[in-house]
């Protein structure tokens, strides 16, 4: 009853399928035994060999092995009950013993007296059951990467044994994310071709498969089998991929010790499917093993007609910029990446040891800025639009260094990971920390030590229903105009959220729920000083997000593009954040550090914001079109940041942002057209980085608060995340980000030279931009200007990249200074960047 309720409530009932499956090949051969319509493939003549596939597979798994074995043997590859083209009756016995009896019945009908049994993975348990059921009829046994121990059973299957929960879990998740699960079976992901993925997906789509798979999973109990194996003395060959993550080699070694007459053969650089990844050697070993005692000559496997296919050379996707040495050049929405590498573990054996995965880079940049103040004098606040050199010249420069590590530590077992992002130097200015012990900068002996910055630290756990993540984790969505994790090669910032998230793969999508704590405080130490206690629960700024995502991993994207598939990915989210009260005395820059907070420090806030966004990406081997739309609707009932000075009028926001990127592979070059819009606010200044408590800006200012109650009670300018770079000068350096603006950005890039693993590329982008609200610009004119940004870049897959960017900005009338009778002049920038990634 519970099972019925569960499946009715959530997924519809996963039903069995007793009848012959529709769509079987016309030449398929079947026998009917014990109420099961069993499909088998037979080839060759001689001593009989039966091939038994693994869980979730079919006789197709032996396609590259069967022809070689069939040279000297009568080979019968069987689809077990519940798999392949065999039927899935509800009353079938799906235990290894039951499947073994089924195989014996098939062999009986086919007139096979004795047989050599070959099994793969879970099929090995069926093979061994055959051996213990009729040891006299089994000549020998060969097992590939056997799955025959209770310790190998993933927790997902154990959870599924519960009545009702199993139906729910399998109904929701069993057929999900095959493209992400499949690579776990291989050492070299290039073997995971799109054809293989789709073959598995087709297999799982067959009627009755999910119900049968659950029935099989519930019978993953092998202890009794091992008791019976003690008396089995026939020769056994164990063939094992040394890099098998599904059934690790340690189980092969254990099995070799347990069986009285077993030989273990292992294959380096090979995962769970030696029939594919170690095809030549493993098939030769199998054939030799089966041929022993028959005096057959060795076969020239792999040297003649049945050589394993070359791994599919995956064509790189057209990337928005030059090939990046950084991982994940096309970032997924961050919620989609949570536990992405853990999820396949739901179907694999536990990790034996703690594993550490480390990535990162060292980046150094240097830039020269020429006349970025545009020689246009001061704005109406008396400020330049860019810092002016102290000596009154035109040149400024910068140089900095970042050393970043992204570390993931995987616990023993199925799926627990602790991850962190640590920046050992975080954009530290080169020469910016001189040791002045010598008395002056000129006599500095070097640089003083810098602080280590931990930007993220979070944990992920694989549950039967999805990934649970908690901690301070990256926050990124789509192109990154609203939330940006700062993962790009030239990024400066990066969002991190203190978040509790749960991500579940359902109906071909990822459904994510997240709760973010944006701000709390003030705090008081606990009695023992061991932890901090927030003094007021109503001052927390917090909210929830629900997101739906249809995304592919970078590897899957490349795989699908190579297969000629046009990928359509999309995501959407809805977030709400609220804050009831506030305690500005603990965070305002003007606040003297205070400790003894009282109720007088508490002020009303009444913040309520809804943010929603959507993202679409269409890619294939020659095209990328990607767009993001973001909208924010917010209100602040009490906009005053000063305790005790209440403003009687609320402030509201309606902000809209949009960005489009495209790339088309033209053969010798890639070209595309980008564009964007960030809604504006008519208040003076762009409002890119308003400071808390800043005074309203007069007309003619570059920046300033966008709300000036009571007359102006709106903040409607959408601000792109500053890590979303459109250009080099105007938005990035002068305004600070894209806000209150419209831009168009055609671009082109070509490869000049390919050397080894690297390529030298030349690219250029032309950016034309206008203010959305002319009243926001220093002159009150709309034309912001035109910028040309060429780039020369060498990047290597080994992790090294050198980039030289140049930018020249021709300011529009928006920057002219009528008051000072100065016309804005051209600005230029040169930026060099070296990245050493690992």
């Amino acid at each position, binding site marked *: 009853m519970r099972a019925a309720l569960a499946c009715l409530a959530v997924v519809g009932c996963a039903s069995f399928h007793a009848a012959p499956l529709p769509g079987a090949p016309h030449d398929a051969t079947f026998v009917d035994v014990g109420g099961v319509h069993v499909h088998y493939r037979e080839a060759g003549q001689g001593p009989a060999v039966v091939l038994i596939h693994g869980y979730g597979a079919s006789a197709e798994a032996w396609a590259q092995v069967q022809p070689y074995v069939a040279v000297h043997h009568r080979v019968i590859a069987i689809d077990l009950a519940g798999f392949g083209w065999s039927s899935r009756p509800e009353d079938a016995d799906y235990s290894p013993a039951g499947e073994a009896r089924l195989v014996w019945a098939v062999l009986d009908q086919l007139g096979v007296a004795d047989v050599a049994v070959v099994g793969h993975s879970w099929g090995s348990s069926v093979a061994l059951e055959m051996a213990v059921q009729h040891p006299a009829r089994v000549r020998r046994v060969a097992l590939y990467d056997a799955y025959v121990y209770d310790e190998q059973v993933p927790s997902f299957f154990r959870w599924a044994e519960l009545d009702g929960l199993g139906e729910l879990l399998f109904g929701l998740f069993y057929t999900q994310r095959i493209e992400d699960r499949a690579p776990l079976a291989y050492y070299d992901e290039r073997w995971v071709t799109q054809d293989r993925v789709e073959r598995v997906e087709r297999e799982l789509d067959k009627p009755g498969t999910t119900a049968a798979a659950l029935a099989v999973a519930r019978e993953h109990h092998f202890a009794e089998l091992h008791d019976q194996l003690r008396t089995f003395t026939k020769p056994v060959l164990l063939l094992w991929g040394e890099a098998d993550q599904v059934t690790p080699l340690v189980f092969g070694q254990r099995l070799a010790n347990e069986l009285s007459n077993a030989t273990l053969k292992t294959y380096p650089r090979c995962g769970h499917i030696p029939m594919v990844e170690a095809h030549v050697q493993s098939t030769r070993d199998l054939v030799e093993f089966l041929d022993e005692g028959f005096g057959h000559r060795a076969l020239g496997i792999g040297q003649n007609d049945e050589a394993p296919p070359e791994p599919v050379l995956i064509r790189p996707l057209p990337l928005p910029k030059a090939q990046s040495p950084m991982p994940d050049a096309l970032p997924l929405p961050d919620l989609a990446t949570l536990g992405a590498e853990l999820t396949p573990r739901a179907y694999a054996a536990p990790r034996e040891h703690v594993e550490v995965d480390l990535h990162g880079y060292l980046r150094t940049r240097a830039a020269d800025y020429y006349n970025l103040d545009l020689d246009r004098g001061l704005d109406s606040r008396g*400020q*330049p639009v860019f810092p002016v050199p102290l000596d009154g010249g035109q040149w400024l420069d910068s140089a900095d260094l970042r050393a970043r590590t992204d570390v993931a530590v995987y616990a023993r077992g199925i799926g627990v990971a602790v991850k962190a992002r640590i920046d050992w130097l975080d954009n530290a200015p080169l020469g910016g920390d001189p040791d002045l012990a010598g008395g002056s900068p000129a006599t500095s002996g070097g640089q003083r030590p810098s602080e280590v910055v931990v930007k993220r630290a979070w944990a992920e756990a694989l549950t039967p229903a999805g990934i649970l993540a908690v901690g301070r984790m990256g926050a990124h969505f789509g192109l990154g105009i609203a939330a940006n994790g700062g993962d790009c090669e030239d990024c400066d910032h990066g969002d991190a959220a203190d978040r509790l998230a749960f991500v579940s793969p359902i109906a071909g999508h990822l459904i994510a729920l997240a709760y973010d704590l944006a701000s709390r405080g003030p705090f008081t130490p606990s009695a023992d000083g061991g932890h901090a206690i927030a003094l007021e629960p109503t001052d927390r700024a917090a909210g929830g997000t629900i997101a739906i995502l249809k995304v592919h991993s970078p590897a899957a994207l490349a795989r699908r593009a190579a297969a000629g598939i046009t990928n359509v990915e999309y995501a959407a989210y809805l977030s709400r954040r609220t804050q009831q009260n506030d305690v*500005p*005395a603990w965070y305002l820059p003007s606040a*003297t550090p205070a400790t003894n907070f009282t109720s007088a420090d508490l002020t009303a806030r009444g913040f309520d914001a809804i943010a929603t966004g959507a993202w679409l990406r269409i890619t294939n081997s020659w095209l990328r079109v990607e767009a993001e739309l973001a909208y924010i609707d917010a209100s602040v009932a009490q906009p005053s940041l*000063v305790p*005790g000075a209440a403003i009687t009028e609320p402030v509201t926001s309606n902000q809209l942002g949009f960005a489009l990127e495209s790339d088309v592979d033209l053969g010798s070059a890639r070209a595309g057209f980008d564009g964007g819009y960030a809604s504006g606010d008519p208040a003076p200044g762009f409002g890119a980085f308003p400071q808390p408590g800043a005074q309203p800006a007069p007309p003619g200012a570059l920046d300033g608060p966008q709300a000036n*109650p009571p*007359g102006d009670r709106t903040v409607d300018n959408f601000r792109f995340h500053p890590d979303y770079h459109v250009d080099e000068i105007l938005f990035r350096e002068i305004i600070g980000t894209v806000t209150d603006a419209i831009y168009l950005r055609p671009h082109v890039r070509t490869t000049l030279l390919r050397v080894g693993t690297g390529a030298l590329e030349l690219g250029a982008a032309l950016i034309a931009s206008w203010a959305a609200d002319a009243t926001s610009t220093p002159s009150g004119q709309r034309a912001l200007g035109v910028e040309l940004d060429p780039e020369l870049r060498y990047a290597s897959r080994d992790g090294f990249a050198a980039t030289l960017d140049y930018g020249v900005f021709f300011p529009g009338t928006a920057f002219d200074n009528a008051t000072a009778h100065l016309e804005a002049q*051209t600005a230029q920038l040169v930026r060099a960047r070296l990245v050493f990634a690992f």
Partner: protein
Amino acid sequence: MRRALLVLAACGVNKTPQPAPQPQLPDCVPRRTGQITADTLPIALGATLDFYADANKPVDLTAQAGVFDLAQQFPDDPVVALGPVALGAQWYAASFPAGQFVVDAGGGLDGIYHQDAQALWLDGTASQQPGAMKTLIAYPAPLPVLRFPLADAAAWSATGTIDSTAVIDGLPFLGTDRIEVDVAAGEQLEVPYVEFSPILRVRTLATRAPTTGSPALTKRTTIFLFECFGEVARAESNPDEPNADFTTAALLRRYALGEEPN
């Protein structure tokens, strides 16, 4: 195209000057303790607050249930920016060696002050312009216009001597300036679009008495102080106003949040 030809036109001396230093805003966030000390009445030289400045307006300086209501808007409310400026460049600066800053006192006069932990001291008064009609009063001993800590029920008085060095409107003057001050706490002050809470009301009766001749003149001033902001409202009476909570303000200033709605 013209701009494109100017890629290198910006060589040489930068036409954009160095910006003037920005006023250093004080490190102060109201803690709403009901007291104001010298620390919570910081002097931010160069910084200004906007005020609605009116003349001859009806005013209610009494609290109703602890709330002072000065929120009434007048159609002709002009906005002025007021704030302390450093003493130094003014024509009268040398006459006030202890003075720190100057505040526009209205009527073409400046008040010269200095502040320490004990009080905000009025060092004297001077006309903004020198000349034959100048005013210059430098008290030998400054007047404590605000004594710290300011709190409910505080009261004090002080007398400043106007000696022979003083001139008023170009004429010599001998006499005294006496202030009598009382402080009351209020829960809230309402001005247009803003509510300050808690608030301290400071009433001052100033009496200028010549040594000989004409009778003494009195003027009543009620100011409202809020932590960190300082004075957020002021009402000055007509001369010789008998009522401590006068109802017609010769001068009425109230904190102005920002531009008016259209």
